[in-house]
């Protein structure tokens, strides 16, 4: 039976201690873990319920401009926080482009980083999956691969990371604050998620017992606020994972890009920071040609992991479009269809009703 211990620690220290032995998993919103347990894809021996830990659900704006988001802040609360929206609009847009209202009300920021791939072969306990069992093989290869990786994959694993939130976060140099048996430490989000190796073992930088306590955005993140967008390509307007997505943020002065940030979602086992693209854009004029060159650089080295070659071109176009949208300016109000191709573009965009 799925027999497991359930503990509800009163402090972060207790939580870390409870999760340090055996095969434990932290339970927050539960929007992914419970599904995985029901599907038989995850079998933790102990659930450490962290939902009532004190002090992890604040959004703090430090004097130096740093934003610290407690790990238990709900997706919906963060997205609708006015100060956060003003400072990090692309992050808010990504949050609202994700899941459904019900899920956003339950899901937490820390949990979002820890969600597992949506690869159907990972969920199916009868399929071989190196993520579930290192060395077992990968039945996604040769299977239905429309949603699979085109960057950073190996024969061991072609899965993608499904998060919307992580895409702008990684573009904006977010840092993950971690408490563990050895004390606290920090890891840049860019290196928090692991690409698959030969056998696809560790998925994140977390060591046994370690708990995400907060995600921090550096002060400079807000300097991109006037020109920051998230764009998510998908066939259903809501409650669908991205076929591909991109977060783009620009600092533009006197018709030149001072600094660019670009990350892609739905293309790799991690949110894919496109640093080569960013370098190409620094100092360039914000033109469609420059954006396309940058987008091509972002997809440099991409190759299909199955019947998904079109995804490479699509990802390049989504990246170029996200950059163009960012250059056009962050809308004054959140679009009615956040992150959508059909959201109005530009600073004067009308955030009217979904039925407009």
């Amino acid at each position, binding site marked *: 039976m799925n027999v497991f211990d359930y503990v509800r620690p009163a402090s972060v220290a207790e939580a870390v201690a409870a999760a340090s032995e055996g095969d434990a998993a932290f339970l927050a919103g539960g929007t992914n873990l419970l599904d995985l347990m029901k599907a038989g894809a995850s079998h933790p021996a102990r659930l450490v319920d962290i939902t009532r830990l004190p002090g992890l659900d604040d959004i703090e704006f430090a004097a130096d401009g740093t934003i610290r988001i407690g790990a238990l802040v709900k997706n919906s609360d963060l997205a609708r926080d006015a100060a956060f929206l003003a400072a990090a609009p692309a992050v808010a847009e990504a949050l609202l482009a994700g899941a459904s209202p019900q899920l956003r009300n339950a899901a937490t920021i820390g949990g979002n980083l820890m969600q597992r791939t949506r690869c*159907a072969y990972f969920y199916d306990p*009868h399929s071989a999956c190196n993520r579930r069992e290192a060395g077992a093989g990968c039945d996604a290869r040769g299977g239905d691969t429309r949603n699979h990786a085109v960057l950073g994959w190996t024969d061991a694993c072609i899965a993608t990371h499904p998060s919307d939130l992580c895409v702008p976060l990684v573009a904006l140099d977010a840092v993950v604050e971690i408490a563990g048996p050895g004390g606290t430490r920090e890891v840049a989000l860019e290196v928090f998620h692991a690409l698959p190796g030969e056998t696809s073992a560790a998925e994140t930088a977390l060591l046994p017992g370690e708990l995400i306590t907060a995600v921090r955005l550096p002060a400079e993140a807000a300097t991109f606020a006037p020109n920051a967008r998230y764009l998510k390509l998908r*066939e259903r307007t809501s*409650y669908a994972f991205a076929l591909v997505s991109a977060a783009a943020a620009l600092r533009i002065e006197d018709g030149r890009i001072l600094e660019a940030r670009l990350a892609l979602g739905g293309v790799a086992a991690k949110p894919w920071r496109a640093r080569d693209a960013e370098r190409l854009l620094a100092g360039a004029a914000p033109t469609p040609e420059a954006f396309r060159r940058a987008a091509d650089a972002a997809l440099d080295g991409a190759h299909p992991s199955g019947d998904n070659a079109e995804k490479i071109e699509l990802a390049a176009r989504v990246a170029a479009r996200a950059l163009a949208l960012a250059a056009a300016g962050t809308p004054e109000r959140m679009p009615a269809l956040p992150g959508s*191709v059909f959201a109005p573009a530009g600073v004067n965009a009308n955030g009217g009703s979904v*039925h407009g």
Partner: protein
Amino acid sequence: MAETLEFPTGHVRLGSNAGQPLTRRDGMLKVTGAATYAADNRPAGLLHAVYAVSAIARGRVTFLDVAAAKAHPGVVEVITPANRPPLARNPDEKAHGFSWRIEALQNDGVRYAGQPIAVVVAETLEAANEGARLLAPRYEVEPARIGHDRGEVFDPPVVGVGAEPNLTKGDAEVGHRAAAHHVDVDIETPLHYHNALEPHAIVAEWHGDRLTLDVPNQAIAIARSDFAGFFGVPAENVELRSPFIGGGFGSKAILNGPQVLCILAARMTNRPVKLVLRRDQMFGPVGHRGGTRQRLSLGVDEGGHLTVIEHHAQSTTSSFDDFLEPAANASHNLYASPAILTRHTGVRIDTGTPGPMRAPGEASGSAALECAMDEAAEAAGLDPLEFRMRNYAETDPATGRPFSSKALRQCYAEGAKQFGWAGRPLAPRQMRDEAGHLVGWGVGSSLFPNPMFQAEARAVLRADGTGLVEISAVEMGQGALTALAQIAADGLGIDVDKLEFRAGSSELPDGGIAGGSGHTATAGNAIFAAGSDAMGRLADIATQDPASPLFGAGNAGVVARGGRLHRADDESRSEPYTAILDRAGLDHVEGHGSGARNPADAEDYAMFSHGVVFAEVKVDPELYQVRVSRLVGAFAAGRIINPRLAKSQLTGGMIWGLGFALHEEGVHDPRTGRPMNADFAGYHVPVNADAPSVEAFLVEEDDRHVNALGIKGVGEIGITGSVGAIANAVWHATGVRVHRFPIHIEALLR
């Protein structure tokens, strides 16, 4: 449309309650959670059954760890082919024309992934789940056959439910020779799974040889008789209760293996047992829409008239039974052509057996036909609506019979006006919105037949002036409890608020099948006839009573309305029902009626609901994401009992068509045959944000032949036309014809 309709006896008229846009009578129960669905039943001593599913698509089960499952605390019984008691009917026997082979642990064979291979019965759902997991089956695996190219192709004796597989009308060769333009279109549609929000669920309880069942069911009388047949008891020993269905779509019209296994578990344990399918279990033993591969060859002459329609449809079915999506039949009755040739083949693959799924055949066939018609219009250089009107069928193309009624021309006009079709550029890629998105407009004709089944009803007028009508009709979200009550109230000549309407139980008169978009027509005619019968009896009493102001009017000389009988020739002379019954010393009068098609009309007329759907799509010119920004439909479907509910059905059908065009797709792994998107995160149906503007307009139609009340049907027609309209609009926006549904971004990418 006539304001009122006199029924044969003349005592009752339809049109006081019927025709009104009443809100749902059961709405409050549903929004407050008080409506009881099958799985809500928890009889004392209830056990829970969970069935283990096969992880392979073909082969046999070689081992089940029954000992481990039995040893799990709470597990009461484990049923496998080794200990399964005999059934009175062989699960592989097809008892009648509406029965299909089921999996009830008759042997260790596996015919598709998701097939039940054992049942664990336990004190709790959790224990049953764990018991099922502990069975840890092992298999002898044979390669799965998935897709049109890997299964055996065959010529089916019938398609759909007993329909002819082939039709030849006229000479196709002559038609092709007469054509100035030729269009060959190959269309592929995927497997669809019904996925009603309420999964299949059943609670079974035996009392000796009497069986009570709480189970959502669209065909109560047939199901009762079939369940009784499997367990060797008379049908009247089975009480089947189905007061509310959380969506059926055809899936809940067909008896399935898990239901029989639950009843069996109840008998083996001598306790009530509940079995509820998990969402992933909905992708296997409970039917689906088979995938199709269709080829249409159309010929068009210089005048823009069709010279030939050839439509070949190949549909997937299981390895062990036949349900062929009768897709090519969609070309029989819509467009005039001197030559029509339709043909079906089947292909056997390792899935469960398909079944009727909302507009079976009509949906996938219309999708292909309307796409081909659009391409033919393009070839002929004609506006696609003009092309359809040039090929308007004044009589049924397949049989030559007149239509019982057909207001399709008015639908075209009304729909085009409401949509604003005029001025549409012929060429694709001509329109943009202010944001620079490509805009396209497309059209598709809608057509759905008007079958009728057999139904019986009982109507009672009580001494206090209230009414009771009983019929085993089925409320499955479509609004039957409301629309049928409106008819019932008119049948008794009372206000609907004074009517008690009982439905959804096998203990009531047989309401027929809630399927084929024929439920309101079938049950409605029975109900109205029953009311009319009761009113005839009341009229006898009143007109023979010297104390009545109606005395001497003659039985045919009175009319029932508003709780009173009136003299037909002098409406000022009337008497309330209560007074008539009071004087007669009666506490009620009762009437009985039946509903079925007049066989002569069935011989003489072709009977269809008609309509048209216009779609506007927006497409990103680089990213090719599609948004259906507007859907406008206009439909003529005979007498509309409740315009609010009818529009709800029609717009629901149109949104279903949107899902068909852009979202729905059952994905099976090509190697193992396992469904790989068996949940709502993976199997996409439209959400509200996908359908920002969907409107259905009703076009009046007065049909004196389709049935006595002139009722056609609105349940499925909205799907037809919509799929093609959207695909055609996508072409008009992009210039790309996508021939494989759903239309994916990758297929449009240029």
